């Protein structure tokens, strides 16, 4: 029997006086009796089986509406008359809403929550839960790994205990290190915008600046004529963090990347998101293989995996029998559809400037859409192992494991099969600076599926690191055919606009109002730590410091 874990996500609800008295007197007898009557649906709903004869309210004899079953005497009351039942029969205060299997207090006239009752409900569903097994690793082991990762030990930081020196005058000046324009080599803003993000992603920055990939140690360089892509990235880090204020020309990088991308795919990327993916792919492909040998990416320790990779869970549920098949897929980012069908609320109207159709798309809305149960079309019936035939199915996505850096990609294009054309969606998308991802975790999604019962759903304490802070946004302006990418990066709560060679300071409002295309969040603990460390960032190894002439402010 599952122990009720102290889940920090729940507020432990206090029982009302009447529930407490009921439990003292009757213990679990009523619950156990109800358990026999519980009916579970394949998609997670719970209700109480109705008797063959139509239930009637013991007071008004009405047979319509919602009924509440008394836990003690098993009589039915309609909602309005539960209080009368409680008054006429002393001690008969606790009811069950038979439609939803929720407890109700007839005296307090309020819905009640009891972990013991929820456990009873969940044990009825127990078959559906075991399919969510997450592997052989114990929760304890995962916890330890997770903590190590967060504290940075796993990433092998060479902490700047040596040479914290602030010889670099600019550390005391207005602008933090690492701000340097990137020259546009001919419509390469898609590349520049993503490079700026990587340059300021806390764990990536730490990795390269602390010598995570040393030229001398790179064995790949010695074996092939091609430059190692990581060496190229390392070179960019060195150049950008050198203190040189002239815009940097990433020509060597482009050259190397084109040589690598030719191996990976047969097209030339023009989309910032595609460039981002291909970059991380290339890093994993080259780095991961050399480090891990085998093709297996279970525990790949390449920088791409360690920083960006999360795990998505996909549940496909047969709508007839409830059998759920679960698969896990690693993901380097999440591509979100814009939630365009948003209903407006009064409160919303006051707060938000509307789109033309009067509604506001938000990032949470897109994430809701992403994790919403989706009924697969009747032409997409999947074979159910249990039923032994094709059935209508429900599919639901959730996040099993969050990465250190979460990359969200907004799908701003519509492809019309009819018109055989694509167009860009310019619709404004609201995105927060602080994002809590706990509602989208597998444990939360699973819990919501079963009615948010108080129960442990397989999440572990790593789910507590679900708070993220934004550190970069890639924006696009223009059309599909002709447009421009600009990045915004956030350093110590100051935003900078990275528009190819031009780095300028901007205020928060500019960023909030921008048309986001890719949004990057870092785990809050990492983000805060990176901010503290800013003034002590290790200098690029092996580089002469550039001392600015007076008056840089």
């Amino acid at each position, binding site marked *: 029997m599952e122990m009720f874990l102290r889940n920090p996500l*729940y507020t432990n*609800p206090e029982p009302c006086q009447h529930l407490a008295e009921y439990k003292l007197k009757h213990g679990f007898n009523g619950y156990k009796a109800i358990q026999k009557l519980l009916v579970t649906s394949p998609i997670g709903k719970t209700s109480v089986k109705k008797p063959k004869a139509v239930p009637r309210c013991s007071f008004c004899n009405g047979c319509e*509406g*919602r009924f509440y079953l008394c836990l003690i005497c098993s009589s039915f009351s309609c909602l309005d008359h539960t209080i009368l039942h409680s008054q006429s029969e002393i001690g008969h205060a606790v009811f069950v809403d038979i*439609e939803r299997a*929720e407890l109700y207090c007839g005296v307090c006239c309020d*819905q009640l929550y009891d972990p013991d009752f929820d456990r009873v409900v969940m044990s009825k569903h127990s078959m559906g839960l075991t399919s969510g097994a997450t592997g052989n690793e114990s929760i304890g082991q995962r916890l330890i790994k997770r903590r190590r990762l967060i504290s940075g030990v796993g990433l092998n930081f060479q902490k700047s205990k040596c040479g914290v020196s602030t010889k670099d005058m600019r550390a005391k000046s207005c*602008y933090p290190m690492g*701000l340097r324009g990137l*020259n*546009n*080599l*001919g*419509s390469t*803003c*898609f590349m520049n915008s993503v490079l700026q993000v990587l340059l300021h992603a806390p764990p990536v920055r730490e990795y390269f600046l602390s010598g995570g990939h040393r030229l001398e140690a790179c064995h790949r360089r010695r074996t092939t004529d091609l430059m190692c892509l990581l060496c190229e990235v390392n070179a960019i880090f060195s150049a950008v963090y050198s203190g040189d*204020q002239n*815009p940097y*020309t990433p020509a*060597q990088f*482009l050259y190397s990347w*084109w040589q690598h991308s*030719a191996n990976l795919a047969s097209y030339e*990327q*023009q*989309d910032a998101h595609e460039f981002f*993916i*291909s970059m991380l*792919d290339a890093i994993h492909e080259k780095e991961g293989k050399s480090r891990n040998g085998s093709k297996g990416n279970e525990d790949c320790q390449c920088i791409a995996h360690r920083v960006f*990779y999360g795990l998505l869970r996909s549940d496909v549920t047969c709508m007839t029998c409830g059998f759920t098949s679960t698969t896990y897929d*690693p993901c380097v980012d999440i*591509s979100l559809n814009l939630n365009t069908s948003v209903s407006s609320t009064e409160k919303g109207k006051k*707060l*938000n*400037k509307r789109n033309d159709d009067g509604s*506001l798309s*938000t990032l949470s809305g897109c994430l809701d859409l992403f994790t919403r149960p989706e009924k697969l079309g009747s032409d997409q019936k999947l074979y159910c192992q249990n039923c032994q035939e094709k059935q209508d199915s429900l599919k639901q*996505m959730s996040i099993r494991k969050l990465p250190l850096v979460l990359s969200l990609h907004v799908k701003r294009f519509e*492809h019309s*099969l009819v018109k055989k054309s*694509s167009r*860009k969606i310019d619709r404004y998308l*609201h995105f*927060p*600076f*602080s994002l*809590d991802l706990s509602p989208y975790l597998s444990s939360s999604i699973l819990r919501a599926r079963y*009615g*948010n019962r108080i129960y442990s759903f397989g999440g572990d304490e790593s789910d507590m690191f679900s708070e993220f802070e934004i550190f970069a946004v890639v924006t*696009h302006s*223009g*059309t*599909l*055919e*002709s*447009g421009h990418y600009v990045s915004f990066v956030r350093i110590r709560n100051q935003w900078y606009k990275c528009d190819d060679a031009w780095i*300028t300071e901007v205020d*928060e*409002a500019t960023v909030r*109002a921008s048309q986001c295309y890719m949004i990057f969040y870092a785990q809050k603990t990492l983000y805060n730590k990176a901010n503290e460390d800013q003034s002590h960032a290790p200098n690029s190894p092996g580089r002469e410091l550039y001392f600015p002439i007076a008056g840089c402010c």
Partner: protein
Amino acid sequence: MSVPKEEDLSPHSQLSSHFFLDLLDSIIVDVASECHRVARLGLDSNLEEEDEELKLSAQARVRVADPSNSNDANGKYVVDIFGQTHPPVANEIFQCMNCGRSIMAGRFAPHLEKCMGKGRKARLKVTRSSTVAQNRYSRSSPLSAHSPSSNYSTNSMNRLPNGTSNFAGEEHSNGTLES
């Protein structure tokens, strides 16, 4: 939708109206019950922060849309944080690592494309006339319809449809076609 008065309806319509209202009631109670549980268990504790972000976002959009607010110019004639200005086309000159020629930074990508024998242009030159080869395709579009075929891309349900990988268009950096 407004519910017609019971007296105005035929008995049949009255009955169906009655059932509809019953169903509607049931759905409303379902939603209320669900939200009540979420609120009572503290599962929606972020509501206030979310509202605050929405408010800031709305304010930001108003501010930015106001033409009287001096935003940094969108053009390329701005001064960066170091007090520098830069030409629209990067004019740093260096040697191409493929062929050794001196190239201007802002023209490096198109040069490299031909130099390395990549891209539609380079291939076209072999079989077509030079006028066709002058059609440029943008390097700044938000979409290439060709989806990455890697194993590490996201959620398989959201793959992009396969299509042409290039879009014709003008080179964006200064709005002119390269001759």
